[in-house]
């Protein structure tokens, strides 16, 4: 086993990790701020991919799909929060969980009815096709682009949450919503926006995944599992945790693929079990 291959495998792991971070972010933000476990996350990821494909085919450009679909589905997410989740605040955590679980079935079935059960081709944008020579091996340009997008999204999120007034309100609202209300902040408006943001991120992940994986109504189910694993390992609600955990899971999967490829999927769950045994709150989670 030569160093070049191991380096290449490490890089593949980081790239895969970046994709995992992207899929986990939306889930993590919604749980961290609203305390809602969004089981429709995978389905919204899938709906995002279809929306991106639809916009791209209308406009003839992948870029419009990439920009418009997350906003569109983000707005749709706000409707979900306003009409479906909002009545359940103050009840047990299971209620929104069951609601979103049911919603995911509705969304998958809806897409099956509109777009059919077969997969639909989502071609890689022509500007990003081909491979890049990294010196230790070749890597698809599109995947490198996705890593770049994830980096930018994470940076913007961090700046937004840490450096703006809105971010301050969001963070404070996550800690003590009652106090925020007393201080005259309309916290429900903040929750609406945060839910929309989380859903928008899920659908951004969907659009970006389109050219890498085939687009089909069931594409979200595996993503939901992956996003959960990453969020649980990182610590529920911790943004930094999701990022580190996503990259770590990506690298672990990639290294396992090198030595025991048939274990590449299961290793992610093994890692989660291990973390839960040693640190039940996750790497960066706070004890409740």
């Amino acid at each position, binding site marked *: 086993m*030569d160093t*070049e*291959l191991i380096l*290449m*495998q490490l890089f*593949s*792991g980081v*790239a*895969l990790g970046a*994709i995992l971070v992207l899929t986990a972010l939306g889930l993590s933000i919604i749980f961290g701020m609203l305390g809602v476990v969004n089981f429709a996350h995978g389905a919204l990821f899938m709906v995002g991919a279809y929306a991106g494909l639809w916009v791209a085919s209308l406009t003839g450009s992948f870029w419009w799909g990439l920009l418009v679909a997350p906003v569109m589905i983000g707005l749709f997410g706000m409707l979900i929060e306003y009409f479906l989740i909002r009545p359940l605040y103050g009840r047990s955590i299971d209620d929104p969980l069951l609601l979103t679980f049911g919603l995911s079935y509705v969304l998958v079935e809806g897409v099956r009815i509109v777009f059919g*059960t*077969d*997969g*639909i*081709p989502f*071609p*890689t944008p022509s500007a990003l096709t*081909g*491979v890049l020579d990294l010196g230790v*091996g*070749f*890597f*698809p340009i*599109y*995947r490198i682009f996705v890593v770049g997008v994830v980096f930018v999204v994470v940076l913007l999120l961090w700046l937004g949450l840490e450096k703006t007034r809105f971010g301050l309100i969001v963070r404070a609202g996550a800690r003590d919503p009652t106090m925020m209300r007393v201080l005259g902040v309309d916290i429900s408006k903040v929750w609406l926006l945060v839910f929309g943001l989380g859903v928008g991120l899920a659908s951004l992940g969907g659009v970006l995944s389109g050219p*890498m*994986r*085939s687009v*089909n109504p*069931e*594409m979200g189910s*595996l*993503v939901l599992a992956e996003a959960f694993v990453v969020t649980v390992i990182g610590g529920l609600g911790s943004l930094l945790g999701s990022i580190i955990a996503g990259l770590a899971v990506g690298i672990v*999967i*990639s290294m396992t*693929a*090198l030595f025991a*490829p*048939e*274990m*590449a*999927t*299961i290793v992610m769950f093994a890692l989660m079990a291990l973390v839960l045994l040693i640190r039940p709150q996750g790497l960066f989670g706070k004890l409740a």
Partner: protein
Amino acid sequence: MTDIRNITKTGISRRRALAGLGAGASLVAMPWIARAADDIIRIGFPTPLTGPFAAEAKDQVKSAELAVKQFNDKGGINGRKIELLVRDDKLNGGEAATRTLELIEKDKVHAVVGSLSSAVQLAVNEVTRARGIIYVSISQSDTINEVKDFSKYTFHEALNPHMTAGAVARHSFKKGSKVAHLVADYAYGHEMLRGFKRAQAEIGAETVGEILHPFGAADYSTFMPRLRSMRPDFLCISNFGRDQANSIKQAVDFGLKQQAKIVVPVILHNQRLAVGPEVFEGVVGGANYYWGLESQLPSAKAFNDAYRAANGGAIPTDYGAYGYTGLSSLLMAMQVAGGTDTDKVIAALEALKYDVAKGPQSYRKCDHQSVQSVLVLESLKKADMKNDADLFKVVANEAASEKVLRSCTELGFPA
């Protein structure tokens, strides 16, 4: 269970006797047990309508329905109408076994056709074997032919991995070719790999590496660096359904097509549609059926035309065709047997020569494998496609021959 089947048998015999005007007077002895329901021949059809093989399963149902309709239009079997009972097995062995048992116990089916996974069909086979119900399996499997899993009630209409992998290998590999394998880690993948390696040994093609991937994986990027480092002439990808689409797409993204020719044991019509011509261009794979055969075969033309008429101009796909050929063979045998008497239908199936879509076929006596032609297809470049359905070029059509099968003795049957 046996009681009910006997009643059914008597019921049919009585009708036949009446139709034949009094030849079997003794059989009219029990008219009170004849029930209206016995007039209908019920065929159970478990198939994974949901999950990663949904597209292929749906086509199987459409084709099976066509076969049933054609027989019903011609007056059924001895005047008895045929009914197809489709059930979703969710691509899960347990679910398939439960549905099959339900079909047999509750719906009182006379035979079972279907299932679309080498693992799930073995679950169905367990149930039908134990209950003594005829099962026409329409999904690839090797073990179903072997003595261990053999059942005299089971007929294997689908090709088996030795047939498809063998044909693809014979038409692609040369002596000294270097082959890298990417294989789905379950029965189908393992069997296909075995089929390829057997053919490679005969040809003298070398295996430079094999990677087993988890079934249903969405991301294959982490396998690509190692596959590249094997420097193969051929990348041989043995998986099914969406796994095929995803893995080929990602292998192409990683530039493996520039380095190696991609071959698959079974090239799937629906997956080619799902990822587009650019990705599949030049990929070679085996198939049981391709609609383009209609230019050479009258039976293919007749099947396509009937399918088009019944499905708004759509064309039948590879796995879809199994639904048609499998069900047609069973119904033809029932016609010969004059009804649903299990032993008579088995005898009729064993003796049957049929050509309903893809040239002559017949079931080999020892293992009940359907001896039939095997196609090797190559996916066309977009510019070479004459229309949207023109996906493949037929590069070889191996005529039906027992020679491509493992011999009966090799499978463990007494010589």
